[in-house]
């Protein structure tokens, strides 16, 4: 009896983990605030992971010098260097329908609160005054038979790719959709010649 219960618990633990993963994402999508972030596709196809768009959110590369122009150059570099490897809170502001960084601070000093739209991430690299933040928003999986927007558009300046991210009040974000020239991916794909 005990053995049966142990097997049952082990199997339930796996199912519960998957269930939690799904429920957490569904909750985030249902309750998170939608923001649009411009992206740069960098590596459109990976043979191991199937067809996904490897993306780099433009707002993930933050120039501290632009956010803190009042500081001297070496102080800006020092500020950027102090964030290396840190978990950070990046407060966002909307500009022309796209969201971009307004400020960046180490998350260890508390978060900006529910009134602000902000993203939680970890600083990957620091170069001079530019910090590269990992928000966990770096893949959009393309359905097997759908058109691939990346090879067609990513080198052309007259087209724009963006993602719709859902952001929770704790700064966690998930990709809800891909926008191709402002169109949701499903709509854009339906309009493509078969």
């Amino acid at each position: 009896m005990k053995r049966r219960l142990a097997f049952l618990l082990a199997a339930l633990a796996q199912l519960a983990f998957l269930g939690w993963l799904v429920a957490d994402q569904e909750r985030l999508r249902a309750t998170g605030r939608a923001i649009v972030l411009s992206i740069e596709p960098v590596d459109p196809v990976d043979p191991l992971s199937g067809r996904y768009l490897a993306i780099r959110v433009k707002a993930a590369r933050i120039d501290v010098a632009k956010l803190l122009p009042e500081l001297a150059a070496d102080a800006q570099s020092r500020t950027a260097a102090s964030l290396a490897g840190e978990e950070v809170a990046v407060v966002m502001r909307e500009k022309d329908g796209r969201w971009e960084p307004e400020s960046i601070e180490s998350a260890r000093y508390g978060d900006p609160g529910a009134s602000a739209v902000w993203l939680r991430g970890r600083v990957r690299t620091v170069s001079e005054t530019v910090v590269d933040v990992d928000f966990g928003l770096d893949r959009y999986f393309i359905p097997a038979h759908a058109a691939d927007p990346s090879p067609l558009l990513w080198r052309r300046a007259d087209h724009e790719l963006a993602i719709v991210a859902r952001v929770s009040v704790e700064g966690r974000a998930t990709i809800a959709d891909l926008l191709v020239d402002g169109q949701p991916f499903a709509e854009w794909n339906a309009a493509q010649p078969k």
Partner: protein
Amino acid sequence: MKRDELLEAVKRVESEGLVPAGQGEKVGARLVEILFPPRDATRTAAAVVGWLGGILVAAGLLLFIAAHWEELGKVAKLTLIFGTLAGLHYAGYRLAESPGRRPALGEALTAAAMLLFGGAIGLVAQIYNLSSHYPKAILVWWLLNVPFALLSRSRRLLVIPLALFVVWLHMHVDVWVEDQLRARHFLWSESEVLAFGFVELGLGALLAALAAVCRAGRYETFSAPLALLGRFAALAGLFTLAFKELGSTRLVSPEQGQLFSTERMGELWIVLAPVACVAGTALVVALLALARRPARGAMRHELADGAAAIGAAVAVAATLLVVPGGAFLAANGAMLAAVLALVMRGTHRGRPADVNLAVVAFLATVMARYFEYVADEFGAVFVFIGAGVLLIALGGALERKRRSWVARAAGSKP
């Protein structure tokens, strides 16, 4: 010892009068029965076929979901994933455990479920466009599969979480070290490989400690494969650390007065921190093993292996700290000592697997040194010919020695 040799030995004993005349044949047959039990070929074949079938079912279902990605709604995808996982676990349990009428097939289906769990995590991640900086999916994959290996006490099922654990550890260390080094100095690669070498030594110690915990207990069956993998991991670590050109310039050949500079110490700490964590865990596990007094004697080889792996890591790290250019020499020396120790223990204690592992490690090290030092000096043709001749000579010499070592090891078995 082979069956024919055993029967021959019994005949000799009979002719010496130690066994009553006419009883030799019966004694020989009984000893053969005890020492060489017939293999259940049907069960083995059933297990292999079952495993292949289980893997095909799991892969097929994942492919079905992938191929019908657009037609299947989110709910259908998730129902298929959850339903298949639960169904495979249930069928595996019924066949292997209760009532357990097809244990080999049941084990295969449980294995398929364990593998499918990873695929299921990947598919859910794909549905929600999830990605993770650290390899958390593999962490959860091996962690939640461990209970099935423990509950079934199956060596074959243990392979799945064990292999995933080794992969996860390397991936985690890779991301952590890369994060630390890139974020500060844009250094990578060589120092990462150096960290891998140390971590593999720590992994060797951890697996040896786990083998010691399993020894003479409920999970005795896991002890041998864990210990073997531990020795292999430790030798792999020494093999990696034995390359001269490993590590950044700052670590291996610092400028005058920079030996104990803050930057060098910081980088050294980044390289050594992962092995410190793994070796620390190994020590805790070894203490747990030692707490079981009655089993101490049975686990002495595993504890010796673990201590040797940690000792080698400390020796190479200490050399890297104070005589940076000599770290690779320390690793080569430790490798040679390990090979000799394994051969001696193998021949004296009757452990042929130790001898074979030592021979393979020695061959790999000699070939690596050949390519490292000789290959640069000559053209490609001579390198190939030289490597070939070296391998033939080494193979011939080692085969002769290995046979006698293995024979001694087998003969000296208690």
